[in-house]
């Protein structure tokens, strides 16, 4: 149970990072950027090639890992910029359906292009972060065996000496504390999971700061409120929208690398389902709303791991869409979304 919660939060952080890109683009352009999930895929592939190129794949170290993240995010941001510039900008004044179809086209192009360039097969992602457990809760054995019995401790007796209802919590391999509790407290939190959560929190905080505290963020909010009025007030629409795509793509790339380290395989179609699910997460939280995207992503991750935990893993892709339909019917503006009135 506890384990599923942790897995759900790790998965949810990845969804939340992708959902942020969807929600920002939808906020400023009212466009479902179907290609966003594929930017996430590209981010993972950039991470793969850059970590091989920099040597991080062979000897992972913290500076190299950070470098891989920064370079991949920059490369994905460049792709996001090009997509906006060449595919979406020319269509901005036309009916939205044209942009939507183009977005689907871009998504297909990236998927098939990815299969051409990277090859269709699964690739093993290098372990940039070791998968040693960061925190473990396991049944406690009685006082260390060597204290009680003189001579070499026998592993079999040590295992037999597990005390029911007693648990030990170890951080980084060292025992931290013990406690008594009924129920199943078994838990393994890997370092990857901790880092996924930390990186996501840092990036989300940075994004919130950008949107709420900088001039660019204010311009983004103005465009989201009313594009034409913002233009009349001197906001340079083109550069702000391009910036939105750049930021969103960088976040998606970070999510791609984190998820690739966690899994740890990548393939050119890995972005399709996470992309759709992250979009659902954005709708769930209230599309165009940044805290909503984070909340939606977390809820989505938790819902999916609970379905798997219940033994219904063949339904795991249906749960996202069921949530989507439920939320659209009951509360279409999302959990944290503002009410928008229909204008005649």
């Amino acid at each position: 149970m506890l384990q599923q919660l942790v897995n759900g939060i790790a998965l949810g952080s990845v969804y939340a990072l992708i959902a942020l890109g969807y929600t920002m683009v939808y906020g400023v352009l009212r466009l479902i950027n179907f290609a966003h999930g594929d930017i996430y895929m590209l981010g993972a592939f950039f991470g793969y090639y850059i970590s091989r190129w920099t040597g991080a794949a062979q000897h992972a170290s913290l500076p190299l890992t950070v470098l891989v993240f920064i370079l991949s995010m920059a490369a994905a941001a460049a792709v996001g910029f090009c997509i906006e510039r060449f595919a979406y900008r020319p269509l901005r004044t036309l009916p939205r359906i044209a942009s939507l179809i183009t977005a689907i086209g871009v998504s297909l192009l990236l998927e098939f292009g990815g299969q051409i360039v990277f090859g269709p097969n699964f690739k093993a992602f290098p372990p940039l972060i070791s998968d040693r457990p960061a925190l473990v809760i396991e049944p406690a054995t009685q006082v260390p065996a060597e204290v009680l019995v003189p001579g070499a401790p026998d592993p079999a007796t040590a295992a037999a000496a597990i005390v029911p209802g007693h648990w030990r919590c170890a951080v980084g391999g060292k025992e931290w504390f013990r406690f008594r509790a009924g129920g199943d407290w078994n838990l393994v939190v890997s370092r990857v999971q901790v880092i996924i959560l930390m990186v996501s929190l840092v990036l989300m905080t940075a994004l919130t700061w950008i949107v709420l505290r900088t001039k660019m963020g204010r311009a983004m909010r103005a465009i989201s409120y009313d594009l034409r009025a913002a233009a009349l007030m001197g906001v340079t629409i083109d550069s702000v929208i391009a910036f939105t795509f750049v930021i969103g793509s960088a976040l998606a790339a970070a999510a791609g690398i984190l998820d690739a380290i966690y899994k740890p395989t990548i393939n050119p179609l890995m972005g399709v389902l996470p992309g759709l699910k992250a979009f659902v997460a954005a709708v769930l939280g209230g599309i165009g709303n940044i805290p909503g995207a984070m909340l939606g992503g977390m809820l989505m991750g938790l819902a999916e791991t609970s379905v798997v935990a219940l033994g219904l893993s063949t339904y795991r892709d249906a749960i996202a869409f069921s949530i989507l339909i439920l939320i659209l019917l009951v509360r279409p503006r999302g959990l944290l979304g503002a009410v928008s009135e229909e204008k005649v």
Partner: protein
Amino acid sequence: MSAPAGMVRRAGVAVAVVGLLALLEIVLRHAINPYIYDILIRIGITIVLAVSLNLINGFTGQFSLGHAGFMAIGGYASGALTYHLGPRWIATLPFPEPVSQIVLFVSALLLGAVLAGAAGLIVGVPSLRLKGDYLAIATLGFGEIIRVMVINLDRMVSVTRPVAERDSYVLIGGAKGLSGVPQYSNFFWVFLAVVGVVLMVRNLVRSALGRACIAVREDEIAAAAMGVDTTRTKVLAFVIGSAWAGLAGGLHGHFIQGLYPNDFTFLQSIDVVVVVVLGGNGSLTGSVVTAALLRIVENVLRTLPGAATVFYLFIVGGAALSWSKSKARRGAFFLKFAVYLIGLTLMLVFMHDWLQSRIAFLRGALYAFILIVLMLNRPQGLLGRHELDFGGLLRRLRRTPPAAA
């Protein structure tokens, strides 16, 4: 007296159409390459799907991305009927075997259409309250849910069976699919469906319901103010479109002799949307022509020389289109044109083996590329909302174009 005379004339036309299709079936089956026959059938099924989606997306202005789901329901329902009950029906029906087969096939198709229409009703009533992007995403979601249900249905139903039989229980085949569906679809049935759907949608659009659909597309609030029951109109259009999608699913299953969940993914829905949008939202002939073009281009793209030809044509065509626009900058234009041509040729020469090994994905990438380029240059689709008038020597007949919303 005019009504009976009209009916006689219509009956005559119907008999002539059926006779012509039957004749064509016999001739085509024996005279042409089976490969081309196969493409013709696929074109027909795509037309049925596209025209039915055009009723929803083009004429009623709702954006559905879940057509594959309804196709799956119809396909599986009719496939399961002929697979499980077929032999028994043919044995018990008091007709000669070919006639029994026809009765069986038609009832299977109708069952599929009715079930898909019912599913359309269940999906449409709640989700048609949504608009635009939200409706698109909701229908996409329903499409995926239907697919997951299809994969899991056997396991759900097998609970009612004795434990020993559960693993071998086959109702619709689950993730593996249902293979061994008899091949009843042929040119005759597929193009009969094509004629049916085109006539039905054409006549529908000219009826009161069709006018209501168009009114809803142009402005839902204004339509409601004029007394159109917008919900009923949208749901009816959705149900009719879904039912035809179900019928197309049945034709598909009885042609490839099997039903597989992977044939009914999001990509299949996208494919139909692409045909409708490229042909022109609200243009029937656009859908028909694009369906044929797309299936043909897709098959040409199967080989590298074919793909190269399409690419060269594409560059030359693009150059011809942009020629008139850029008279002032001919130097730059020629440079760009030359760079594209030389680049493509160099790529074909030096990367031939590499491209050859990835031809399947190259086809998909080209498909996506063409979609993007067409959207960028002609977002209203090939025909916009116009219709090709085949009667007047393919001269484009300008109907009063509806005012843009």
